[in-house]
């Protein structure tokens, strides 16, 4: 069971590195995050300076001034990058007919879907790990709230996993990688923005929309609050995405 999932994940994870995809995505991510981090730092030190030397404005903690905007921004960056990571997962298998190899191998569809998900997830894990230097430097040199750091990282990982689930689904729906990527982005963005609609809708409808929104569940994480309701929401979101992918793959065989 686990071995089969790993067989799938292993090949796909490696193939990220035999094509330019991984290098471009990781390099792009590191450059953008580095730029954002320095921007946030500059902004933070400016505000601190204004506060301590000129007694203007309000003071900010490292937690509020650096950690929260850092991971808030990282979520947006992943919204743009995940489609590039997931678009090929099934689309390419269909295009080069290797899907026939997968579907005539003694592995179940569930194992196949989980393996695909895992390969993209591992790449995300690598990317998040590469940016751990920022919170580590801050933890060593300053006093950010460790709960918020942990919550933000876990929340980012869960939120990004939802984008991956959406990406896996759209990749199974078309042979065309560009279409798969574009639909992944549009759909992820939709679930992001639902909370705006929630604000204007108000009432029960607003509550429902807010509950559906990917980003509103991130708020608690960024306060260092890890609640089972939020974790459960993200896990259900991932489950639904992967379950639908399973149905799509099953339907290939009937066509």
């Amino acid at each position, binding site marked *: 069971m686990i071995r089969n999932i790993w067989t799938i994940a292993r090949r796909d994870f490696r193939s990220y590195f035999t094509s330019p995809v991984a290098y471009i995505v990781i390099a792009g991510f590191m450059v953008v995050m580095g730029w954002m981090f320095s921007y946030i730092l500059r902004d933070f030190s400016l505000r601190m300076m204004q506060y301590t030397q000129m007694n203007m404005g309000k003071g900010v903690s490292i937690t509020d001034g650096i950690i929260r905007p850092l991971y808030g921004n990282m979520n947006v960056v992943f919204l743009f990058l995940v489609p590039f990571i997931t678009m090929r997962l099934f689309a390419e298998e269909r295009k080069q007919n290797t899907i*026939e190899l997968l579907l005539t191998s003694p592995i179940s569809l569930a194992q196949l879907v989980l393996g695909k998900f895992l390969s993209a997830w591992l790449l995300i894990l690598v990317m998040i790990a590469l940016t751990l230097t920022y919170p580590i430097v801050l933890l060593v040199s300053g006093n950010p709230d460790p709960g918020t750091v942990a919550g933000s990282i876990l929340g980012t990982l869960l939120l990004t996993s939802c984008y991956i689930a959406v990406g896996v689904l759209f990749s199974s729906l078309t042979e065309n990688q560009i279409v798969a990527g574009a639909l992944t982005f549009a759909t992820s963005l939709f679930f992001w923005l639902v909370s705006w609609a929630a604000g204007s809708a108000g009432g029960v409808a607003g509550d429902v929309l807010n509950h559906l929104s990917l980003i509103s569940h991130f708020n608690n994480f960024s306060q260092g609050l890890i609640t089972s309701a939020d974790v459960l929401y993200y896990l259900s979101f991932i489950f639904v995405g992967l379950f639908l992918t399973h149905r799509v793959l099953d339907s290939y*065989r009937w066509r």
Partner: protein
Amino acid sequence: MIQVSHLTKRYGPRTAVDDLTFEVKKGEVVGFLGPNGAGKSSTMKILSGFMPATEGTATVADFDVFTQSLEVKRNVGFLPETPPLYLEMQVEDYLDHVARLKQVAKGDINKSIDTVLEKTSLGDSRRRLIGNLSKGMRQRVGLAQALINNPRVLILDEPTVGLDPRQIIDIRSLIKSLKGEHTVILSTHILPEVTATCDRVIVINRGKIVAQDSIDTLTQKHGEGTVFKLALRNPSPAGLEYLRKVQGVESIAANGTGNTFIVKFVKGAEANRDQLVTAAVQQNLGLLEFSAERASLEDIFLKLITQET
């Protein structure tokens, strides 16, 4: 080893496979012969567990294709019409991946790779990128992939399609070398393929079986009487007239350069060839050669599939 019973596959309103029933015995190499669109690929996809049939049953390697599909997949090697290759991988890595997919025991993987590389003569190319290989080489990688778990049953969909003559000969002799060790079912729309590699042929057209037999029986049943080749040193017209009168001879026609002739007997009268040879010797025609020519399978095939339409 393979049992198919009343197998039917419909794509929407279109019937691709129509009530097929046949059997393949252990160690046999069976050719699945039919024109394009006959339903060959559809049947093979069903037998390999890729897709379910609309009606009917099939067992492969003693497992039911529909209810025990994982078991079937463990015992079958499948080469689809388009070989399923990852072009960005090296031959060796690709085979390693397929071995893992087919759940070859960890300790046996390297040995299996060496074995199939040897069988398909790809040893020198094990480190090459599949994307850089010629079409014939890729087809061999496809075969190596199908062989990696040493399956009891091999299903090969048009294994030589699109190859040049040299590559075709290579692949055919490779398939022949598999005989006995594996039960093989291969599809093709080219006749010589069947004569070159198979023990038995199943002719299919528009989803239906139109004939299934050993190649010899098929030739005898559907050939227009047996044909012989006759070569003479001094064929005088009078002598030839005499030969034409031998009982059972239907016709004697010159074949090209004048010294060789095609002798056709009336169906069932082939035994009279003794008389013919005796007559040729008596007439001092200088008998050089007398040999059986098989009625062309090509003709039979055409006849079979046009009868039906």
